[in-house]
């Protein structure tokens, strides 16, 4: 009498409605997302989905309903502990809330919490952002191809056999060969009386029909694929972080946050981008990703060492003509004053070979040495930003990666 069906394989369809929800409140969500990023730990930033809150008015579902605050009413409640008939009960200060069945959405204060998965959260975070000037295409030796469907052919390997097409063709062939014979057969069969010649002719036709094969070599059809070369944008992002002694806890945190955003952005939007991590104090070292994000500071500052290392890696390991490169440099801006000349020289070279350079200065209330140094070059592909608090990280990041066309000046 009862049937039991397993529906788990079909998966959740809530995605369609959730998608529409997000679309409908995209703008509000983006605002909310901007505000919500700031105080959580870096691991949470990467891994956790989170709840964002938007005003419920944008999602109101109005209906004609009674205003219970106005007008008289009489109601029954459970759980009487002390009242007697005729007692007076003080009305609570808010407008006669007793008796509401609770807001239908289960939320209050006109705010709605929406739970975003890490995916959704990051999409919103990085929506509209792009790597600028990504235009060097690669003519690298190893090309990438993908297979694309391109109709049907008459020859091929058995795993590409298109059964329906084949049978359809064979049907066509049979009809064209059989057609006249079958017509004649039907006619003959309807003639009365049946003579010997007619009977013989019927047998003859039936034999002919039976000789026409069900399937023939010429019927076979196979799916056809062509190889389409994929344009390859190769890019590399150099992450340069100042880890000298002047970088205190706050400075390191802010730099790391910025780098994490950059990393997530690239990992999400540009799967083909390689990242190179370099830290420097008086000397520079290339490090692995995990070490980069857990590096502790100490030592003097010599920015040119860091820039030099980036330049060295870039020049020796990468084909400038084929690869787009970017530099993100985070520092508190303190630099040994005699070093600026050297930095300028290196930067001058880098701006001509790299696509863009992004410099963020953290936690200095006035523009510092390096900020000014970067400014001297007046180059079109240098962007500078100053971050003064955790709340400032994301806006600066957003600003740097918003394409110029979308920027409001």
């Amino acid at each position, binding site marked *: 009498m009862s049937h039991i069906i397993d529906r788990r394989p079909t998966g959740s369809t809530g995605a369609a409605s959730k998608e529409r929800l997000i679309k409908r409140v995209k703008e509000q969500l983006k605002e909310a997302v901007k505000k919500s990023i700031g105080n959580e730990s870096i691991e949470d930033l990467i891994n956790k989905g989170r709840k964002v809150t938007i005003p419920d008015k944008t999602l109101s579902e109005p209906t*004609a309903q009674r205003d219970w605050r106005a007008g008289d009413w009489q109601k029954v409640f459970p759980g009487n502990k002390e009242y007697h008939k005729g007692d007076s009960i003080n009305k609570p200060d808010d407008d006669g809330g007793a*008796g509401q069945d609770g807001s239908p959405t289960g939320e209050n204060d006109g705010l709605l919490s929406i739970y975003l998965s890490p995916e959704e959260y990051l999409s919103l975070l990085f929506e509209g952002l792009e790597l600028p000037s990504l235009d060097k295409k690669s003519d690298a030796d190893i090309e990438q191809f993908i297979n694309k469907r391109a109709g049907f052919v008459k020859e091929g390997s058995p795993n590409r056999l298109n059964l329906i097409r084949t049978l359809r063709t064979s049907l066509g062939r049979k009809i064209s060969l059989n057609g006249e014979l079958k017509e004649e057969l039907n006619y003959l069969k309807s003639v009365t009386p049946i003579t010997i010649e007619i009977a013989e002719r019927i047998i003859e036709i039936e034999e002919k029909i039976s000789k026409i094969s069900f399937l023939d070599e010429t019927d076979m059809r196979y799916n056809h694929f062509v190889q389409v070369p994929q344009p390859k944008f190769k890019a590399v992002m150099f992450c340069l972080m100042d880890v000298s002694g002047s970088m205190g806890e706050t400075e390191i945190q802010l730099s790391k946050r910025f780098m994490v955003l950059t990393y997530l952005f690239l990992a999400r939007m540009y799967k083909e981008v390689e990242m190179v991590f370099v830290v420097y104090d008086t000397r520079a070292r290339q490090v692995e990703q995990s070490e980069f994000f857990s590096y502790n500071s100490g030592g003097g500052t010599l920015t040119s060492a860091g820039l030099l290392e980036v330049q060295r890696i870039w020049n020796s390991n990468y084909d400038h003509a084929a690869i787009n490169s970017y530099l993100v440099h985070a520092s508190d801006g303190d630099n040994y004053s005699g070093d600026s000349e050297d930095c300028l020289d290196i930067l001058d070279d880098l701006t001509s070979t790299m696509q863009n350079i992004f410099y963020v200065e953290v936690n200095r209330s006035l523009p510092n040495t390096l900020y000014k140094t970067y400014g001297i070059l007046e180059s079109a592909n240098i962007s500078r930003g100053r971050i003064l608090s955790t709340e400032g990280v994301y806006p600066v990041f957003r600003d740097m990666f918003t394409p110029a066309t979308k920027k409001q000046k």
Partner: protein
Amino acid sequence: MDPLFTGAEWDFSLLDQLSNECEKIATEELKLDCYPNQFEIISAAQMLDAYSSVGMPILYPHWSFGKHRSIEENHYTTGKNGLAYEIVINSNPCISYLMEENTATLQALVIAHAGFGHNSFFKNNYLFREWTNADFIIDYLSFAKKYIQQCEEEHGPSEVELVLDAAHSLQNNSIDKSHRPSKLTLEKEELRKKERHAYTEERIGKVWQTIPGEREKTLSDSSKKDEDIFPVQPEDNLLYFIEKYAPNLAPWKREVLRIVRKVGQYFYPQGLTKIMNEGWATFTHYYIMTRLHEKGLITDGAYLEFIGSHTNVIRQRPQSPFNPYAIGFAIFMDLKRICLTPTDEDREWFPSIAGQSDWVSVLQDAAYNYRDESFIRQFLSPKVMRDFNLFAIDNPSEEEDYEVLAISDDQSYKDIRKILADQIMEERSAPDLRVVNVDLKDSRGIKIKLFGDITLDIDQLELVAYYIESLWEYPVSIAI
């Protein structure tokens, strides 16, 4: 007998056995008449989907369902709700959902509660029999979903969303209270849809029939005042009226309104029988699980687990809104007690029921032939009132204080019953808004009037009026 299971794990053959044993008790002892059951195993994420599409797995996607899902998801991930046993569809076969994470005990509970409790209620309660068609609903919803999808492809999702938003806001005011829906089949629906498209395109609506020549004729004949009033009788089914008479609405939009209206109609009885339905299902699951334990088919441990879950569900917080499970279950248990072990008070209050040995028939009569407010009026006993410590208060809006009108003592039982029944009726009814006039000659404006003496929430009403105007496209006025 050996218990059917001893741990939390379940497999498909166990579900089969559980279903069979529950069915035995349901049909032989409770004499329940049910639709065939279809139990669907789903994941928690799918359960969330079902919750927010108002229990319908194939409803059209709409952002409001996304919103409810987000809310439900919140509650689920922050542990507020136990998404246990509440999705069951009024259809034939009756579809209920078993979450894969449920323990074996919980699966038995869902099977009993939804598969036999709700099932029999849907099949036999008079409101459902009169107003819904369980054989047809799944097909109709498939049709609806496909249609809306096509509309989105042709006209764009945001256009469709606007129409759906407007229609949802009027869903509660678009119930046909006068006749039973006809037995449409899917084929007929398709045919009807085609015919309507062809017909509507050519049709000149009544609203446009007053072309200049005719108008002069009617104006000169001033005694014919009555004919100018359209509609002749106020129409309380707003979506129906707009669907039929909106001057400029594209045929596909009219069809969408119709779909929303039909779906609303389908759910209408559920709103009116929440207490009884949940009470009945809770009573059924309580009886079945207890009997399974008595027969030795479930262990003591399983029974305790069940009791824990059951107690959670029927918990009633003092001075809070009523928990329909709590009060519904209490009333049905009480009716059984009145049949089997009546007190003098029972004999005085329920002379026809007290002492009846056939309690099964008594309970079935109560469940199948009433709706929530008449159920309360008829069957809420003084004992249940005392158990819940019910009390009634009066809220005169100009006064500073509430006044306690009645408490659960001898003088006031009848008052409490009456006030509660009236309260239920009022809370469940949508404001009585009716179309009273359409200005045929001039502005084509539509005038809607509120019947009855209540105050409406103005902010909400303004939004609703805005929605009506988006469909009617001419001035809208609502007289309150």
